[in-house]
C-alpha cells in the first residue's frame, strides 16, 4: 500500500514537535544564552567561555572531572569485569550479584548522605562518629578528614561513592556478555593449550570487547555529568568542584545566566562525541545480530 507523504509526516509530526520544543529549542537557547551577560540580555561575545576556561574554580572543576573520568571509569569497568568473571564461578551467584547491584537502587542523594556519615570527621581526641575514622582510630591511627584533605583524599573519597553505586551496574551488563561467550569457544581454547589466564585474555576479553566499550563510554558520560554526590557531600568545596555542580552554582546561586550557559554548552560538547560513539556502536551491534 502506498502512503502519501503528508500522511507519513502527520504521524511523525507530534514526536518532532515535542522533541523540538523540549530538546532542540532549549539546546539552541542555551547556546545563545552562553554568549549573553549575567542577566541573559546584552551580547558579551566569548567572555563567558574565557571565564570558563581560565577561572581557578573552573580549572579545578576540569581537573576533577578528568580525575573522575579516569578513576571512576577504570575502576567501575575493571572491578565490574572482575566481579562478573568471579561471580560466574560461585555457587550463590544470584545472591552475590544482587548484593553488589543493590547500591544502584539507592538514590545518589541518599548515597551521599550515607557516605557522609561514613566519612564523618571529628578532631583527634573527640569521639569519631564516622565509621571509617572509628576504624582508623581503633587501629591506633589519627582520624583523617576524608572530605577535607585536598586534592587527592577528598576527591577520591567522592569518587569511591560513585564507584560503590555504579560497579554493580557495570558488573551486570558485563556478566551478561561474559555468559554469552559460547562454551565451545572456551573449550576449543583449552584444547588448543590455553591456560585460564590466556583463555580470558585472548578469547573471553576480545569476545566481549564491544560490550566493555559500551559500558566504558556509558560510565564516562555518567561521570561527565556527575553532580548529586558532589553537591550533597561537599558542594564543591575544598577543591572538589565539578563541572555540573559549577553550572548549578552559576545558575542558581550566582544567578549568572551567561556563565551557566557556557558551562552547559561545554558539558554538552564534551558528551556529544561519546554519545555518538555509543550510538554508532549500538547500531553496528544490531547489524551484527
Amino acid at each position, binding site marked *: 500500500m502506498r502512503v502519501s507523504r503528508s500522511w507519513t509526516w502527520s504521524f511523525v509530526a507530534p514526536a518532532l514537535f515535542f522533541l523540538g520544543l523540549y530538546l532542540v529549542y532549549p539546546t539552541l537557547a542555551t547556546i545563545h544564552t552562553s554568549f549573553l551577560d549575567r542577566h541573559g540580555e546584552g551580547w558579551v561575545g566569548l567572555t563567558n567561555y574565557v571565564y570558563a576556561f581560565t577561572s581557578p574554580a573552573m580549572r579545578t572543576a576540569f581537573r576533577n572531572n578528568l580525575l573522575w573520568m579516569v578513576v571512576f571509569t577504570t575502576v567501575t569497568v575493571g572491578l565490574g569485569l572482575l566481579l562478573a568473571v568471579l561471580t560466574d564461578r560461585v555457587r550463590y551467584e544470584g545472591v552475590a550479584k544482587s548484593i553488589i547491584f543493590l547500591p544502584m537502587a539507592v538514590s545518589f542523594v541518599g548515597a551521599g548522605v550515607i557516605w557522609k556519615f561514613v566519612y564523618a570527621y571529628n578532631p583527634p581526641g573527640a569521639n569519631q562518629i564516622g565509621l571509617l575514622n572509628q576504624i582508623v582510630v581503633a587501629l591506633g591511627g589519627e582520624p583523617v578528614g576524608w572530605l577535607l584533605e585536598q586534592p587527592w583524599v577528598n576527591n577520591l573519597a567522592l569518587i569511591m561513592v560513585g564507584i560503590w553505586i555504579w560497579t554493580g551496574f557495570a558488573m551486570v551488563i558485563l556478566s551478561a556478555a561474559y555468559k554469552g561467550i559460547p562454551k565451545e*569457544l572456551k*573449550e576449543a581454547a583449552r584444547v588448543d*593449550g590455553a591456560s585460564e589466564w590466556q583463555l580470558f585474555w585472548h578469547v573471553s576479553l576480545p569476545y566481549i570487547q564491544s560490550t566493555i566499550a559500551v559500558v566504558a563510554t556509558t560510565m564516562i558520560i555518567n561521570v561527565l555529568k556527575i553532580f548529586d554526590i558532589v553537591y550533597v557531600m561537599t558542594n564543591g568545596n575544598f577543591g572538589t568542584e565539578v563541572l555540573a555542580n559549577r553550572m548549578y552554582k552559576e545558575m542558581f546561586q550566582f544567578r549568572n545566566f551567561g556563565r551557566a550557559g557556557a558551562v552547559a554548552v561545554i558539558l554538552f560538547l564534551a558528551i556529544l562525541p561519546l554519545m555518538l560513539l555509543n550510538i554508532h556502536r549500538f547500531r553496528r551491534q544490531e547489524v551484527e545480530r
Partner: protein
Amino acid sequence: MAKVVLENVTKRFGDVVAVKDANIDIPDREFVVLVGPSGCGKSTTLRMVAGLEEVTEGNIYIGDTLVNDIPPKDRDIAMVFQNYALYPHMDVYNNMAFGLKLRKFPKDEIDRRVKEAARILGIENLLHRKPKELSGGQRQRVAVGRAIVREPKVFLMDEPLSNLDAKLRVQMRAELSKLHNRLQTTIIYVTHDQVEAMTMGDRIVVMKDGVIQQIGAPLEIYHKPKNIFVAGFIGSPAMNFVEVVIRKDEQGRYWVEHEAFKLRIPDEKVRELQDLPKYVDKKAVFGIRPENIEDAAIVPDGREDATFVANVDVVEPMGAEIFAYLNLGDQSVVARFDPASTVQDGQQVRVYFQMEKMYLFDPETEEAVA
C-alpha cells in the same frame, strides 16, 4: 600419534549415568567412529578423552600415559567441534596459529604449518578473512585446519559435519577420510549418522543409553550385529523386524512362521545358528534387511519356500531403487526392489526373502541368536 585406551570408564552427572563401564582399545592410527542416537553418551565419551569432562570411574590412557587428571591443554589432542568454535575476533590464519603461539613455537615454524594446512584444505586464499566472512563449509575447513597444524597425538571430532548441507557433508566425508590416510593419526569421531560411521570408520563403536553395544569393523557390524538395536541402527533403510515362531517339521527342516508367511530357514543358516533348536515352537524376532527382499517377478529363480504374497501399501520410486512398504498382517516392512519392478500402490506382489541373509534375535534379551 598414539593409541587410546578406555578402561572401565564410567561418567555420572549426579544420578544420571551418561557412560557406563566403557572399554575401548584404539590402536595407533585408527579411525574409530562412536555412533549412536542422541543422548547415548558418545559425545561425553569423546569429551572425557579430551579432558573437558572428568572421568567418574575408570582410566583413560593416551599413548602410555594415564590422562585422567591431566588438563586438556597438556593432553596433546586437537578437537573439532560441531559448531566449529572458531575465534570470531581472529582471522583464519590466527585461528589456526593460536594453539601454536600458545605453545611458543617459532614464528617461521608456525607460518610453515599454517600454510601447509591451508594448502591441504584449499583455504589458502581465505587466510586473512574473519570467520563471519566464511561459509559453513569454509569454517569447517578452518576448524579442521586448526586441529591439523597442531600435529597432535589424537584428533577428536564431535559431529563435525552435522551443520553442513547434505551435498557438502558427502564431500567433506570423503575429504576427512583422505585426510586420515594422509596424516596417519589416531582419530576419534563422533556422529549420530550411521552412513558417516560406515563410510569413514576403520572401526565403529555403537552406543546406546551410555552402554557400548558393539565394537567392530563397519561390515562386521553390518553383517553380524550383536543385538536388535545395532541391527536396526546400522543400515539404511533400517532392518525390518517381525515377531515369528520357530517351527521344526518331521524332516528336520526349520521354518519361521508368521500369520502372513511361513518361510524355510536354509540349512547352512541352521548350521550357523547353533542355539536354534532352543527356540523351536517359541517366539523369536526375525530380521531381514530391505535389500534382501526381492520382487519375485524379477528374481524368478527364488526358492518357493522363501516366497509369498504380500500387499503393497506404498511404493516410493527413487530412480536407482524402489522402496516398497509391504503389509504383513499388522506389521509393515520395507523392501528395496530393483527399479525394474513394476509394483504399484495397493497391489499384491510375490516377494522373495533371501533367507540366507536373515537374522534371528531373542525377544527377551534382544541379543542375536548365536
